């Protein structure tokens, strides 16, 4: 790892730690730093409940979801060879949400049901996207992806009319939800880090990889499976949070370069930090009410995407072919 990479890792870890403490302090009632420490030490009844049962699981969940979505974005960008290929833009997450909604309406609930439904939905979206005609042009991929995303969310709204819950928000998250996320997130991200060199190999053309004795298809499929696994994990617990998977990996690329073995861990940290900040701001901005992380992420992510396209930061976008 180069000196500048180490520097950015250090900066983001410090930012992350500071943001966690600040997020614990801020809320409807402000709890000063000293009291936060005291409450955890003495388990003081009222403040301890606010901190441990309300704020902590929410912070924990936003950190995990941010990291998971960012890693899913980085993997999907590598697999599609397209810096814009974020699961939320491609309709992978909204397909998940649609199947969750339909599944909950038609079938009885069971443990892990929501995750299974969003996994199925994401898989369907990917099946459509990996069609050869769609992959001939990187822009066609994005346009079809956006069309899928809008179609799936349209249907989702149709089915959820009246019975749906606020999507893309961390409001009301409990430790039970967070533990589920922890298991999915840690397992998915662990595999992502282990297979991150494959994301680098996929920068070579499929035919070339074949002459080097490895299968591009297999590596690409593995990256996409982890992409769906991670984004389905988030969708099943909090719904769709857009743009994390596009903003974060591209920022990470800007900071630490194109090597996925450093880019993926950096995306993880940066994604965790970004979503924590977004959720904390959302909690405070319209007190006593709040804005969902999804809404705020759209406000931040949309302009970022436009800026990215205008800066022509998409040097490699010409080839997305399998």
């Amino acid at each position, binding site marked *: 790892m180069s000196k500048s990479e180490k520097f950015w890792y250090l900066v983001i870890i410090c930012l992350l730690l500071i943001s966690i403490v600040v997020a614990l302090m801020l809320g409807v009632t402000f709890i000063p730093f000293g009291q936060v420490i005291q409450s955890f030490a003495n388990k003081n009844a009222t403040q301890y409940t606010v901190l441990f049962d309300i704020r902590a699981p929410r912070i924990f969940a936003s950190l995990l979801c941010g990291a998971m979505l960012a890693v899913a974005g980085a993997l999907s960008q590598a697999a599609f*060879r397209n810096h814009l290929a974020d699961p939320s833009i491609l309709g992978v997450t909204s397909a998940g949400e649609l199947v969750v909604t339909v599944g909950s309406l038609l079938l009885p609930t069971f443990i892990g049901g929501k995750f299974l439904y969003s996994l199925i939905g994401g898989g369907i979206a990917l099946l459509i996207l990996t069609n050869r005609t769609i992959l001939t042009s990187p822009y066609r991929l994005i346009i079809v992806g956006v069309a899928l995303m809008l179609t799936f969310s349209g249907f989702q709204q149709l089915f959820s009319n009246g019975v749906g819950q606020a999507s893309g928000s961390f409001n009301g998250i409990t430790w039970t939800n967070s533990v589920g996320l922890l298991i999915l997130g840690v397992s998915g991200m662990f595999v992502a880090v*282990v*297979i991150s*060199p*494959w994301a*680098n*190999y*996929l*920068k*070579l*053309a499929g*035919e*070339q*990889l*074949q*002459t*080097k*004795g*490895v*299968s591009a298809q297999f*590596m690409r499929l593995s990256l996409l499976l982890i992409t769906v696994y991670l984004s389905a994990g988030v969708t099943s617990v909090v719904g769709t949070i857009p743009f994390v998977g596009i903003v974060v990996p591209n920022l990470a690329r800007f900071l630490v*370069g*194109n*090597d996925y073995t450093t880019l993926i861990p950096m995306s993880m940290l940066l994604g965790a930090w970004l979503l924590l900040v977004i959720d904390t701001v959302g909690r405070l901005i319209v007190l006593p009410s709040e804005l969902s992380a999804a809404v705020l992420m759209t406000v931040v992510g949309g302009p970022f995407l436009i800026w990215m396209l205008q800066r022509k930061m998409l*040097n*490699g976008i010409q*080839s997305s072919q399998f």
Partner: protein
Amino acid sequence: MEFNQVSFNYPAHAPVLHRISARIPSGKIISIIGPNGSGKSTILKLLAGILKPTSGEVLLNHRSVTDYSHKQLATQIAIVAQQNVIYDDMNVIDVIKTGRLAYHKLLDVISDEEVVKYLKQAHLTKLAKRSITSLSGGQQQRVWLASALAQQPDYLLLDEPTTYLDIHYQSELMAILNQLHRDSDMTIVLILHDVNQAFRLSDELWLIKDGQLVANDRPANCYDRQLLSSVFNTNIQIIEVPEYGRYIAEIPDSKF
């Protein structure tokens, strides 16, 4: 390696290659020459196992190339394409490391030490940590060559390796290939655009026209004005150049 009555055509298209039979002598440099579209690159792709013959067989150690797994083939045959695409960006040393993939499990970490030798062979030691897109065309071509060498192949295939290079880089690359040929018993099969380069460098020439192997022989036996004129469909003259020897020149029938 050997071509045994090999024909090839893309589905619903006219034949690209027609019943080619020839042996590739081991440890030699073989150049394939012929006009554009005559099927030269197809020959190389068949040798590398990228394409499968429509009929006939390409044999490696008396076994059909199609019977080998990609991994087995990668340790025996390496190919450097005419133009190599890379999506995004990669360090020089990481591109070279991809040449070692066939010797490892897919999850293994390949160390820098393992590829130092190939960096040296392709004169890239100082550029190891540079990003490949920041290099000149000639330097990039050497990176792809080093990556192919890292496969430790018995057969090295190069598809017009000098086409996009200026004269300086062309002779630099030729010098590296010559050195390789002297230091190892590697068989090198190249497609060359420059006929004179092919005559000087090779132990054997394959002349291809319209998907057929018109001649395969030592360069000394191929200085045949009529043969070359018919292959390239133009008026070829062989002239004597002092301190160089025989030089093949195209003398167009009509002036522009």
